[in-house]
């Protein structure tokens, strides 16, 4: 599996567009800045909804109506983050695919997507009973807490990717090598 991931990443790395993005100071930084600044639209609004569900913010605004109205701008934010995230990966594919933090981030993104789906389904099923209550029911509050916690860790992992503590080009413990997908003699920056 790790060999397959490496081969695909190495193939992407050999394409001209990957090199062009990676070597362009302005293009790479514009993409990264857009990725980070879109946090305000995607994560900022998601956290507002989560905090409302937990009763920490906007107690007088209907929780379900808030979630419904903010869904579209939040999704636009996540689409922009997703596109710019793919471009950032495409610019540095081998190192990213062999980054422990990148792999943790990808797993957590899947967990957050499942959590968001379950959260939305539960909210739609139960909205008529608590819509104007200061706090959402316990099940939804758990979902909001998971969302807040995991997204914070995703941002943390995103920051950690920039550091080389567990990079495959340096000697690492076997467990780290296994989790990061290091293959002997096969790494690139």
């Amino acid at each position, binding site marked *: 599996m790790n060999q397959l991931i490496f081969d695909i990443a190495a193939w992407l790395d050999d394409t001209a567009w990957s090199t062009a993005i990676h070597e362009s100071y302005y293009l790479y*930084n514009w993409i*990264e*800045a857009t990725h*980070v*600044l879109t*946090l*305000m*639209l*995607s*994560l*900022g*609004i*998601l*956290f*507002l909804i989560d*905090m409302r569900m937990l009763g920490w*913010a*906007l*107690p*007088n*605004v*209907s929780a379900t*109506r*808030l979630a419904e*109205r*903010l869904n579209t*701008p939040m999704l636009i934010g996540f689409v922009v983050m997703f596109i710019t995230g793919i471009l950032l990966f495409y610019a540095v594919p081998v190192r990213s695919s062999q980054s422990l933090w990148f792999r943790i981030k990808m797993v957590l993104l899947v967990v957050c997507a499942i959590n968001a789906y379950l959260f939305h389904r539960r909210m739609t099923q139960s909205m008529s009973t608590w819509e104007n209550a200061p706090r959402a029911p316990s099940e939804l509050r758990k979902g909001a807490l998971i969302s807040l916690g995991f*997204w*914070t860790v995703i*941002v*943390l992992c*995103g*920051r*950690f990717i*920039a*550091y080389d*503590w567990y990079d495959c080009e340096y000697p690492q413990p076997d467990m780290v090598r296994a989790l990061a997908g290091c293959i002997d003699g096969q790494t690139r920056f």
Partner: protein
Amino acid sequence: MNSATTRQSPIGPYPRAAIATGLLVLLLAFSFSGMRAEVWTALLPFFEWMETTWFGYVGKTWGGAFATIQAGHLVSLGVLGGAVLFSDGRLLGLYSSLPLRDVIDGSHQVFKWALAVVVFTGVFMVCGVAVKVYYLPVFWYKMLTLTVGVLFAFYVRKPLVDRDLSGVSPLVIKLTAIASIMVWFTVAATGRWIGFS
């Protein structure tokens, strides 16, 4: 008639906005004057001292701690941006089914907390690389935009939206919302550019 309700401020009906505007003009005048170089030179020992503080020591010694605080800075900036976009979006006429007053007041509470965390984590980050950022023009642009943003948020936007908005021109409300979004976007963008410099 109650005299307190009829008393006029000597600088007009919008004293906080007038003071903030005066401060902004002074700030801009200072930024383009020769005094700026003198003050900048005098600030170097302060920035050198910042690196010797406990924050500076932790920031320089443990990359993990620095990156964790950076993540906290990003998350709180995201929340601040979310509060600004939500509140100003409502002022611009979006999500009109949500109660205007509750959205504005509730968002402002979130904004204040997020701003406090942004400033605290920002100070920690500066301490780790104080002398480096001292020599970066973009760091000073960020400080300038942050000052403008805080003055605008608390002394221009807040007094305006605290009024009965039915008596305020819709154009003024919309211009204020657009200005607010632009100011905080500029704060975030200049902050991001520090990392590239």
